[in-house]
């Protein structure tokens, strides 16, 4: 074997060893980065799961006057049940209150319907972080506990903030309560956020029943909507109640 051939051979061998080393390194990097990626994703998912699991742990003070698994306030004593899921931040809920609230009140007086108001909080993201929906729903529970849910419900709509504004602060919520005759126990409950976690529970129950938007209007277990998922007009709502009366 000549010297030239030997040199070529050993250079070739070196190259092969280097290639094998590079391949080995690539294999290691691929393996361990893949392991790292999977670990990171598992940990991230675990964090989300953990936070959610802990959120559910808090104790909930359910207002003793609440009906329907403690998630609603009943007004009236008629045979037809109207479930109204509302968010005090939701402009369309206010619209329904303005358009059909009077009709519902008359149905209550005529003992045709029992209305169950479910104050949910799905628009907490629309009040610059002040969670107006939850605070208002919690305050309405305090009002209900003192026998003035409907009065407070009305005054909240009359003073409804624009979406994506901070909304009335707790002092203002208390002031609104006083304007409809609510007293110190109401004030304490609002300041202590006594029923705020209850509002979260009501919202959970609402979602677990497969509802997603507010207002959701249900007459004797049947959801009432206008064409194309729009707000039902007063006439459509009246028809639904009549149909339920049979």
């Amino acid at each position: 074997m000549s010297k030239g051939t030997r040199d070529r051979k050993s250079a070739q061998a070196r190259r092969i060893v280097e290639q094998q080393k590079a391949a080995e390194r690539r294999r290691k990097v691929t393996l361990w980065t893949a392991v790292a990626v999977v670990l990171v994703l598992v940990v991230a998912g675990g964090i989300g799961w953990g936070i959610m699991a802990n959120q559910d742990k808090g104790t909930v003070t359910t207002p003793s006057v609440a009906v329907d698994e403690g998630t609603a306030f009943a007004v009236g004593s008629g045979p037809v049940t109207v479930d109204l899921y509302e968010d005090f931040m939701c402009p369309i809920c206010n619209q329904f209150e303005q358009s059909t609230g009077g009709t519902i009140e008359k149905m209550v007086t005529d003992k045709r319907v029992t209305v169950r108001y479910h104050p949910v909080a799905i628009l907490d993201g629309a009040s610059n972080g002040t969670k107006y929906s939850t605070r208002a729903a919690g305050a309405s529970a305090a009002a209900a506990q003192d026998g003035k849910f409907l009065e407070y419900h009305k005054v909240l709509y009359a003073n409804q903030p624009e979406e994506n504004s901070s909304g009335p602060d707790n002092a203002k919520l208390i002031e609104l309560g006083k304007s409809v005759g609510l007293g110190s126990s109401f004030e304490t409950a609002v300041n202590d956020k006594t029923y705020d976690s209850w509002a979260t529970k009501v919202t959970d129950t609402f979602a677990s029943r497969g509802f997603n938007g507010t207002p959701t209007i249900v007459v004797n277990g049947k959801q009432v909507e206008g064409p194309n998922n729009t707000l039902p007009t007063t006439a459509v709502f009246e028809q639904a109640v009549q149909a339920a009366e049979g």
Partner: protein
Amino acid sequence: MDLKQEQPTRLTAAWPWISTLARLGLAVVFLISGGLKVTDLAASGRAVNAYDLMSWETAKVVGAVQPFLEIALGLLLLIGIATRLSAAIAAVVLVIFIGGIISAWARGLQIDCGCFSKGGELTGGRTAEYGLDIARDVGFLVLAGILLWKPRTKFSLDGLLLGER
């Protein structure tokens, strides 16, 4: 070297840059969509629930886990670690999202897809724009596809670990 191979070489040199853009673009997409949802996990759960594809209990878990997965995936893509695997996971996630939107569309649901928001049911005359949502997600899927095909990128941890420059 003859002239024939001159052209492909130039494209070969360009690929890592194209892939880098795809990687960073996809990272930003996931960071933003996860970041928007992570601040309200309950709302995220309701957005998943609005698709009406699973029980509320399951939707709640998916809604809580999903934003964190999206942010983690965004960060992994940002630093460029196991790029091909990360891109594959992103592609799978996007296909699931697209499938969900198509299914909601097919069933005539009127929901906000919750892609870059907290989602939920659409009310008051807002209509779902499923076509646009799907087109956008397909665009993201193309980015993931580029990375799956050409995972070598600039400024990546992969490159650093492999001693590339």
